[in-house]
């Protein structure tokens, strides 16, 4: 690794992405926006307030966080696996002065950037649903980027282990979908029974969803330091493991 060499890989991915910009945006944003419409507007109209928010207000920040997760994780599974196998992009890159560390960092930062873009577009769309974020929402952007780093790294770990595309079904069905449903996007985790609450709170998306809600509305009720430190540590470990496994796969 050499300083910011990984940036050239980011630029390469950006160049390709520009050609398919519409398809990827619709692919990444369709689901969270439809959920916001169906659950928030459709179901939420007849529901009581949750933690002092309308149901639509309650789920909106978490759905933005989920958009980051989906976009980042899909980029470094299906996208990265295509570059690794079908297109042999990694092989081509490793014949240049760039090394595996540059490659891993470039892919993860790229996935995080794409994830953050999806999150930002979701947040920008909230006023259409009558949800007006507080100025604190600016502080949410680095949190979403960090979450994007984490899920990009997880995706890249899967890519390093994958034998074919079907392998990613395990990842989406057993990791991503449960996280989407049980990380406190749709119901408050705090009010669950203690053992269940304990389990849900250590899921990697849970602190991000809480932070999204706190920063989106500027309502600082619960401590945030532990959530940030925990997410940083988890991201650091995931990035390291992705680098270790991809190196093992690429260098025999």
């Amino acid at each position, binding site marked *: 690794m050499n300083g910011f060499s990984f940036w050239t890989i980011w630029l*390469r991915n950006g160049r390709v992405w520009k050609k398919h910009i519409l398809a990827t945006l619709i692919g990444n944003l369709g689901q969270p926006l439809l959920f916001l419409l169906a659950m928030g507007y459709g179901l939420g109209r007849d529901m009581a307030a949750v933690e002092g928010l309308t149901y639509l207000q309650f789920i909106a920040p978490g759905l933005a966080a989920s958009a980051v997760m989906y976009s980042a994780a899909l980029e470094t599974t299906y996208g990265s696996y295509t570059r690794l196998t079908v297109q042999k992009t990694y092989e081509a890159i490793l014949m240049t002065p760039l090394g595996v560390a540059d490659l891993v960092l470039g892919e993860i930062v790229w996935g995080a950037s794409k994830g953050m873009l999806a999150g930002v577009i979701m947040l920008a769309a909230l006023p259409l649903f009558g949800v007006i974020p507080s100025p604190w929402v600016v502080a949410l952007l680095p949190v979403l980027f960090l979450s994007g780093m984490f899920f990009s790294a997880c995706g890249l770990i899967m890519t390093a282990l994958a034998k074919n595309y079907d392998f990613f079904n395990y990842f989406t069905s057993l990791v991503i979908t449960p996280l989407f449903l049980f990380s406190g996007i749709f119901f408050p985790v705090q009010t669950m029974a203690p053992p269940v609450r304990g389990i849900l709170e250590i899921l990697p998306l849970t602190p991000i969803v809480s932070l999204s809600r706190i920063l989106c509305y500027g309502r600082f009720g619960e401590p945030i330091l532990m959530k940030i430190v925990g997410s940083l540590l988890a991201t650091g470990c995931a990035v390291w493991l992705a680098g270790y496994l991809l190196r093992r796969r690429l260098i025999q």
Partner: protein
Amino acid sequence: MLSSAGQFFLREGPSIGYSGAMIQATSQQDSAPVFPASQTVVSVTGLTKRFGGRLAVDNISFAIQRGQCVGFLGPNGAGKTTCINMLLGLVEKSAGEIRIFDLEAPRFHRQIKARIGVVPQADSLDPDLSVEENLRTYAGYFRIPRRLVRARVEELLHFFALHNRRDEIIEHLSGGQRRRLLLARALINEPHLLILDEPTIGLDPQARHLIWERLAILQAQGTTMLLTSHYLEEVSRLSQQVLILDHGQVVVQGEPQQLITDMVGLEVFEVDGTAAELDALAASFKECNATQERVGDKLYVYAREDCSRLVKVLGEAGSWVRRPANLEDLFIQLTGRSLRES
């Protein structure tokens, strides 16, 4: 058509030519090649790679001198690609020493790879990007300053006759155009060593000849090359030195024509016929200094001297050809006729 490209590539290599034996290769332990440092581009000593229990590369030593094209030959699974991948750091060596540009590999790989160009066996172009974008993107990996990239891309597009397809997406290119683009991409950093892994695989003769022509120009300008190919005609045309690998070891190395004359002979008679006819001919050919080989209902006679006097004997046989001995004869003689399927 190539005037501007010609100037560009003229500054590529050394200004002096070389001749004679420029490569030394052995499979033995103790014979490290000794050359003046500045002329040795690649120096490999005792290189070994074990995959689990299998020895893919077994104690190989060789050197490549500046301005030379060295052909790596060998059946499938002989260890050619593993050897190249070790030079590039894509495979970790189990033992041995690699020095490229007088730098130790893999320790200085970043510096080494900045000065190498590689044409990989498998197409690794970015299919979503255009011809020109592929070159620009690759230049980015080498962090070539933007103002230089523009000029180099233009020169390479013209040199490889791709300037009319610059905005074409890779999917719409023919096999030959893709290969030319891979070559152009490999030259984007003005490499001091060009590694060509099967550069014309799967191409039609026209496309292949165009690439040979361009490689010959590069060679005339002194570019050092390492070439692997199953097309032995390609190797004969381009390489001054060959290194034949089998089962991970160097079987023979040297100047190709010399090796052919020494190990195969001057010319070859290939004769078709019934077993009885061939038996009779085989007996007549004993009068001449030649080795013989029977494969099915075919007789090969490798003549080590002028056997013209036997042509009238052959005239009575069914069908026969008389041709100069070539690299393929040498290759078959050294590595056998049995199929190698991995």
